[in-house]
């Protein structure tokens, strides 16, 4: 019997390719005779365009075409609001190219197509744009105040959307409380900074009338739909391929970006392949941002620390447009109560327009902000009530027997009330406190303080609704010639390891080797039903769909093999790439033989085909060679549609030391306890966690997009916008806890975003704990730079 692959630390199928430089990204697609594009982008935040003079650019040798909005014809339309919601009273989205007004620095105004990128960039500087400046307010808190300059003249108060949700009766809980605490916290604006920036290449095939688009996207099927609609092409004539994609993290799912319209358009009009590869400078002012939120949160508690109610009001900076709807704010709102029972919750948010790059989800998607708010508030409540912060959390956890735990009327992104499916929160916290040895730490901390050293411990508990629907499909087929198994799904990978985990799931059903399973995603020419990669949903939704398809394929294999071996299906076993009769000691038939025999037309191309004929027929049919309802070969498709989100969770803790001379932070230990249900591949889970924690470190220490008051992004390069190097990331100790989800056949929950969510609070609370002897007010912002720590101390009247 083969060992079970689900749960094993299988080496990644994709790594041979990806780590030896053999990955193929959009820029690696060889397109003979390709033209290259470059965008003219707004240099100002908000202005009326008084004129765009492209004549000098057009005159430059090597420039083939310059597009402005006036050249777009039917494409000069507002781009879709992808996820509408009734609370969006003033939805505004971008045009492919700005018309008579620009709304943020970096907005595309013109698209230049030239013989190479050098010439295209030369031409960019020759386009003259006349601006009539309009007033701006970049700070989203001020932008929401009465009288602030408007981003869109017809959107009063800059408010795109406003939503109030209430679960239980918050005011009644506050009236009954012994103690109320409130805190206002801010999470700064950030960018996902994927290694590969955006990229689009397109080829229009004159002969077949087909448009092929290679795009660094997380949503090829969505983009295919958008392009079919914009260009009025039948779906089968638009093929979108996401080849290897160098990191996604959310912002690569915003179809269509200007490039996703202009590059295909140019290739169709100019009858030549066109390529556009975004550079880092553009990426900072073009690819969507996230994180900016300001939360006011209040907790109502009894004197023993039972939290009765929560009220949360927050502002969400949506940038200049709201193409993705309220997703980020809604997700934040739904995780604001964290792992705590808190029966009465009112959460209210406004999405505020600012003249800045639009905001769409970035790994974590509102959860890091919500986690920072609730966990800062819990720390403060513990302090005020004189209850140990771990104990306070314990007293409020949802208990194992309370699952499924629903927060009625708090509606998540899938349109359903928040329902935590399963978990053992207290057990996770205990695992953390055991690992950190609180008693030993307390002693160490006292000694450190006595020596003038600042040692502190931080903690954060997160929950994460993952695996959102509506559905994904799985397709499994055994190649008759090679006997390898070909697996497809509609969402796509950006390096997470789909080619391995999906293969593991199929391997268990078909008794095949993981390396003999080929997973192909991200090509609408191969498989085109499905949604996209986001919300830590690939393993949960596609994994379950692929599992279901593999179960069907397994049945086909067993029936065919039983026929071929003239045995009872119940006696057929699948292992090591073969089907055989249990306990017979005979070799049985290979999967290739089964697949070949299952196809009534077979040429004797190879051994498998020749030997297949030596067995009895795979199908028992007296009539035509394909019986009614039968299909050739071994092939199955199935779908999985989750009843609602699965709720992963975890708790991170760190021991840090603050250097009082520099306020530099040294992380002595970082421990992560997490639960993503059953793990398909613990090694891949650990990779996701480690990467997430690293990205979270960025959020905790560095990631702050720094707009000046005119709306210019001051730190639009990796020299000034810092992301952590490997040298800044501590070793992450991981403790796995597996509570199966009852919602899907494999019992899994998502893990892609988990690592990122709690890190800011872990670090900030650790710093706060370390500096206790200075008796400071709480830290209320992230990221926290050494200079900010210094200012915080100085402002509190302390030394500095």
């Amino acid at each position, binding site marked *: 019997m083969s060992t079970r692959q689900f749960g094993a630390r299988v080496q990644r199928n994709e790594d041979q390719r990806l780590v030896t430089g053999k990955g193929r990204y959009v820029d690696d697609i060889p397109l003979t005779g390709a033209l290259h594009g470059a965008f003219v982008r707004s240099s100002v935040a908000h202005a009326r365009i008084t004129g765009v003079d492209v004549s000098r650019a057009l005159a430059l040798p090597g420039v083939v075409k310059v597009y402005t909005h006036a050249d777009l014809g039917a494409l000069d339309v507002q781009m879709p609001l992808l996820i509408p919601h009734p609370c969006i009273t003033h939805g505004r989205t971008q045009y492919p190219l700005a018309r008579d007004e620009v709304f943020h620095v970096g907005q595309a105004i013109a698209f230049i197509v030239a013989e190479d*990128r*050098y010439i295209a*960039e*030369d031409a960019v*500087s020759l386009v003259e744009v006349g601006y009539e400046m309009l007033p701006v307010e970049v700070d989203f808190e001020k932008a929401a105040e009465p009288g602030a300059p408007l981003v869109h003249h017809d959107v009063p108060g800059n408010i795109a959307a406003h939503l109030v949700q209430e679960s239980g009766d918050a005011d009644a809980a506050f009236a009954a409380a012994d103690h109320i605490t409130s805190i206002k916290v801010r999470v700064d604006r950030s960018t996902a900074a994927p290694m590969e920036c955006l990229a689009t290449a397109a080829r229009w095939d004159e002969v077949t009338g087909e448009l092929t688009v290679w795009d660094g996207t997380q949503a090829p099927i969505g983009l295919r739909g958008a392009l079919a609609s914009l260009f009025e092409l039948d779906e089968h004539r638009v093929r979108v391929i996401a080849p290897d994609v160098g990191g996604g993290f959310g912002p690569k799912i915003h179809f269509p970006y200007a490039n996703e319209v202009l590059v295909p358009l140019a290739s169709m009009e100019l009858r030549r392949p066109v390529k556009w590869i975004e*550079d*880092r*400078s553009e990426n900072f002012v073009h690819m969507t941002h996230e994180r900016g939120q300001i939360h006011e949160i209040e907790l109502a508690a009894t004197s023993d620390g039972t939290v009765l109610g929560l009220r949360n009001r927050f502002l969400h900076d949506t940038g200049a447009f709201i193409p993705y709807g309220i997703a980020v704010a809604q997700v934040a709102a739904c995780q604001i109560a964290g792992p705590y029972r808190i029966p009465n919750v009112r959460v209210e948010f406004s999405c505020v327009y600012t003249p800045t790059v639009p905001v769409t989800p970035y790994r974590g998607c509102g959860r890091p902000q919500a986690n920072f708010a609730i966990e800062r508030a819990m720390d403060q409540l513990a302090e005020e009530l004189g209850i140990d912060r771990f104990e306070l959390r314990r007293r409020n956890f949802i208990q194992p027997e309370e699952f499924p735990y629903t927060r009625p009327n708090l509606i998540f992104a899938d349109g359903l009330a928040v329902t935590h499916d399963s978990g053992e929160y207290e057990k996770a916290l205990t695992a953390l406190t055991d690992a950190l040895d609180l008693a030993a730490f307390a002693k160490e901390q006292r000694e450190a303080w006595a020596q003038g050293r600042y040692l502190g411990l931080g903690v954060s508990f997160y929950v994460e609704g993952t695996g959102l629907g509506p559905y994904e499909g799985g397709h499994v087929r055994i190649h008759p010639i090679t006997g390898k198994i070909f697996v497809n799904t509609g969402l796509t990978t950006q390096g997470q390891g789909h080619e391995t985990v999906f293969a593991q799931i199929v391997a268990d059903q078909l008794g095949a080797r993981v390396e003999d399973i080929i997973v192909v995603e991200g090509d609408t020419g191969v498989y085109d039903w499905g949604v996209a990669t986001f919300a830590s949903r690939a393993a949960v939704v596609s994994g379950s769909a692929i599992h279901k398809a593999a179960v069907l394929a397994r049945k086909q294999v067993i029936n065919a093999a039983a026929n071929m071996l003239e045995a009872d299906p119940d006696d057929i076993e699948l292992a090591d790439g073969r089907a055989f009769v249990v306990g017979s000691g005979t070799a049985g038939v290979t999967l290739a033989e089964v697949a070949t025999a299952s196809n009534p037309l077979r040429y004797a191309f190879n051994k498998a085909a020749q030997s297949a004929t030596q067995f009895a027929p795979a199908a028992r049919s007296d009539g035509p060679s394909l019986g009614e309802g039968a299909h050739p070969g071994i092939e199955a498709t199935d779908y999985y549609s989750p009843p609602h989100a699965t709720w992963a969770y975890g708790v991170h803790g760190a021991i840090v030391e603050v250097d*009082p*001379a*520099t*306020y*530099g932070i040294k992380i002595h230990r970082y421990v992560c306890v997490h639960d993503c249900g059953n793990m398909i591949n613990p090694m891949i889970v650990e990779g996701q966690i480690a990467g997430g924690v690293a990205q979270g470190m960025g959020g905790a*220490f*560095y990631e702050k997009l*720094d707009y*000046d008051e005119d709306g210019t992004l*001051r*730190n639009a*390069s990796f*020299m000034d916008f*810092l992301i*952590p*190097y490997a*040298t*800044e990331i501590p070793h992450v100790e991981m403790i796995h806890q597996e509570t199966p989800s009852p919602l899907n056949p494999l019992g899994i929950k998502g893990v892609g975003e988990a690592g990122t969510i709690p890190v800011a609070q872990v670090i900030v609370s650790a710093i706060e704990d370390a500096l206790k002897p200075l008796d400071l007010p709480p830290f209320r912002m992230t990221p926290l*730079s*050494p*200079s900010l720590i*210094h*200012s915080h101390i*100085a402002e509190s009247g302390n030394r*500095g």
Partner: protein
Amino acid sequence: MKPSSFRYAVPTTLRAAIDIRAASEDSVVLAGGQSLIPTMNFRLANPEVVIDLRKLDELNYIRVGGGMVRMGAMTRQRVVEEDAEALAANPLIRETLTNVAHPAIRNRGTIGGSLAHADPSAELPTLLTTLRGTLTAQGPSGRRSIPATEFFEFIFTTALEPDELLVEAAVPVLEPGEGWAFTEFARRHGDYAVAGVAATLLVGPDGRISRARLGACGIATVPALLTECEELLTGNAPGDELFAAAGQVARDAVTVSDDSATTKAYRRHVLAGLVERTLKTAMTRVGVPR
């Protein structure tokens, strides 16, 4: 992020390089490219001619003698860092270089490139200034020496004439028993520092400091000499209190104003702490045979 088009020259002699430079209206010299290439890709510099110095073997050397360590302008930073003779003569050079960026960048980055670039946050200009080193320039009218304390004029601005190339940098060897240290604080490993401090300490037979040299990067428009610290230290017996006092004296040397990520008050705080720390480390090396 593509540079505008330029002509490219790779002279094999210094003479030829100087001639090309004199003949071109708008040229830049390319050393390791670690600062120049990004500025060209950002199109902040759009030169007509790029003169690549990589084939000038005559500018690639380390010579120790006559009380000086002399480094040719095209010597890679990493080569100097790993040079045993330079280490024996002046270990502060290596300690300073290990704080410059990352090994990959030091593999290409040159001594001359860093000095000619004259970033006041950079470590090498601070080393040259602190040790009162000497820079040698060469142009059509010949060679001349410029004291480091006069070479750096402003951010990215040096005393080099437009037709001159930097050909050599030299720092004195350390005295036997002289203590030394370089420390800095950067937000990430290898970044330009918030502040950095170079120091040497010589203690006389009477147990008092007979010579203290201190300089700092990241705090002014040029690499800064901390002369008030030097004066405070000289003639006094070394000790933690004296070093702490030197740190406090150093605070006023910070002249850069607040930027969006770092306040002036914070930079002062860091400088004070670093001065104290650097002196303590230097002191542990005083009198230690090398």
